């Protein structure tokens, strides 16, 4: 075999692969230590913020502002007795948390943390390494991390962990697709899959000419490709098994999901992996959509904002914003039901991501083929009008169907005798108890056929929406 190195275009990733070994070592150790310390901070941050959201104080006794809290959790867990239940597959049981944690750390190696800086007189970018397919590498590492969860669930030899592990794999498959599709638009725009180049591509905004008016486009893909950004945000919460998508470890149903049988150090590793994964997907979101380490607008007016070590601070700030959103979601939303979660993934996120990807690809192709922007905007307007019309049609059809259903139900109404069997029984759904019926319900039911078409706003035509509508009518009647 010849030592065939992947050929790179001149200038592409030229800054990488030239570091001496000690710089690489420093960077690797620094990233590991950073992630560990940041995890300790994050656990504390999460508990304090969630406490505030629940009108509590949160950890504030141990250490200044309770900062020692998560360190204490870590040390206590590692000092606890190691339990290996009887039915476990020993090798996989031990290996699973290690896979999970290791993969979480690996994914961070291609995240750009800053521009070229000088470390002991050596110029080097603030990034361990970069690949022409850097983003795919992050996705691959995140997927491998799920092996840890699935194997941990399976090897525990117990029902709850197994169900948790299976849920996790299903969740991963569903949301990885949407996540990947959301990122395709970014690849199309930046023309690269390497993280450092995607950051570079978001450096300068472009001017756009709409019907003679020149507009300065923002350079962040989070603004330019807003639908991609939103899909990625939802998918990243699903990917990291965080609330409201924390089905693999749902307390109310699965005790602690895949971690049920894990204690002490191995549990600590899973815990660590979850938080490092949160940081990794947040860092990827920052890199792909929020301009990476580049300074945000008011700061970017300062000429030195994107040089030296400062960008590390902007990067951290952006990651913290994402982490806050994670915590905010956890403090606000209840856990989704499993089928709702799957429906969201397969029936909403993936189709929307597909359509959006095709849309972006078409736009790029028409623009590069030399067509005017006006032509493209015209097509866009037509598409949007067609979409709106279809939504209106759907809404009208759903209302008509609902009205017909109410009529049919009324026609099917059978006289209900609560004492037919000798003792009183409650009515079945759709049956009415004669005489007992409150006047308000009767009025609402009678007017439902005629009134629902103009009063209720049930465009979604979902179960919850219908219930809410009928409840509202009853209240009004």
């Amino acid at each position: 075999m010849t030592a065939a190195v992947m050929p790179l275009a001149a200038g592409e990733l030229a800054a990488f692969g030239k570091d001496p070994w000690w710089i690489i070592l420093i960077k690797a150790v620094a990233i590991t230590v950073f992630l560990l310390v940041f995890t300790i901070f994050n656990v504390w941050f999460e508990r304090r913020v969630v406490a505030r959201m629940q009108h509590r104080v949160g950890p504030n006794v141990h250490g200044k502002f309770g900062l020692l809290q998560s360190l204490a959790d870590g040390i206590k867990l590692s000092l606890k007795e190691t339990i290996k239940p009887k039915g476990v597959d020993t090798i996989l049981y031990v290996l699973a948390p290690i896979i999970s944690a290791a993969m979480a750390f690996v994914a961070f190696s291609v995240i750009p943390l800053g521009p070229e800086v000088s470390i002991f007189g050596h110029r080097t970018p603030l990034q361990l390494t970069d690949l022409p397919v850097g983003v795919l590498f992050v996705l691959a590492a995140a997927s491998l991390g799920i092996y840890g969860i699935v194997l941990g669930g399976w090897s525990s030899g117990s029902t709850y962990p197994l169900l948790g592990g299976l849920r996790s794999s299903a969740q991963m498959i569903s949301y990885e697709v949407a996540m990947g599709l959301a990122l395709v638009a970014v690849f199309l725009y930046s023309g690269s899959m390497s993280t450092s180049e995607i950051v570079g591509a978001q450096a300068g905004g472009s001017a756009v000419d709409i019907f003679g008016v020149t507009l300065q486009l923002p350079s962040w893909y989070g603004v330019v490709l807003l639908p991609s950004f939103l899909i990625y945000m939802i998918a990243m919460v699903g990917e990291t098994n965080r609330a409201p998508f924390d089905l693999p470890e749902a307390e109310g149903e699965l005790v602690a999901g895949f971690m049920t049988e894990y204690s002490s150090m191995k549990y600590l590793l899973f815990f660590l992996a979850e938080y490092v994964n949160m940081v990794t997907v947040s860092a990827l979101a920052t890199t792909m959509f929020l301009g990476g380490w580049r300074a945000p607008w008011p700061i970017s007016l300062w000429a030195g904002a994107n040089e030296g070590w400062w960008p590390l601070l902007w990067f951290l700030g952006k990651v913290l914003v994402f982490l806050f959103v994670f915590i905010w979601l956890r403090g606000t939303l209840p856990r989704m039901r499993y089928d709702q979660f799957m429906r969201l993934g397969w029936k909403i996120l993936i189709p929307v991501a597909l359509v959006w990807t095709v849309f972006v690809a078409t736009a790029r192709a028409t623009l590069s083929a030399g067509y005017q922007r006006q032509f493209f905007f015209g097509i866009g307007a037509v598409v949007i009008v067609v979409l709106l019309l279809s939504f209106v049609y759907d809404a009208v059809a759903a209302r008509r169907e609902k009205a017909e259903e109410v009529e049919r139900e009324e026609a099917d109404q059978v006289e209900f005798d609560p004492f037919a069997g000798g003792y009183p029984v409650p009515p079945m759904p759709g049956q009415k108890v004669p005489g007992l019926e409150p006047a308000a319900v009767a009025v609402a039911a009678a007017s439902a056929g005629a009134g629902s078409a103009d009063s209720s706003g049930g465009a979604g035509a979902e179960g919850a929406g219908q219930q809410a509508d009928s409840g509202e009518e009853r209240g009004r009647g």
Partner: protein
Amino acid sequence: MGIEEKLPAGVLLTTVEGVVGYFRKASVWPATFGLACCAIEMMTTGGPVYDTGRFGMEVFRASPRQADLMIVAGRVSQKMAPVLRQIYDQMPEPKWVLSMGVCASSGGMFNNYAIVQGVDHVVPVDIYLPGCPPRPEMLLDAILKLHHKIQTSKLGVHKEQELEEQELTALESASTSEMKGLLR
């Protein structure tokens, strides 16, 4: 992990005891386990007014494998006793038991065949908390006293010595049947 238990007696072990005790008391995760009305008071203790989260105790773990403290909150029926024991057995060492309320401590007003007359018949109890039910302030007080106990607990050789001394004092002291008059 067990290394801390194998240190030789002396200054090193005393220092480790102090540090380990601090981190252990700073992170006592209770098991999600409520039996009766005391459990309502226990939940209140985790709520906004009393907030055990200040001491890092808002993490109620559903899996006993990750819990440190079992708060027996309420009367233990004969039928519940084996379940309670199993949950206790599933918790990894070091673990503590807080017997909350008079029913868990001694059977309380349920002096009948259905209720275990004190949970110490089933599991070793570290701290008894009277009250029917105890108010959240009392539970907080019990938790703080337990924290003190965890902080001052011994490891390894020191622990063995302590246990030996306790055994000796117990053997030398008069048994309840021997106590007469006001002593009894």
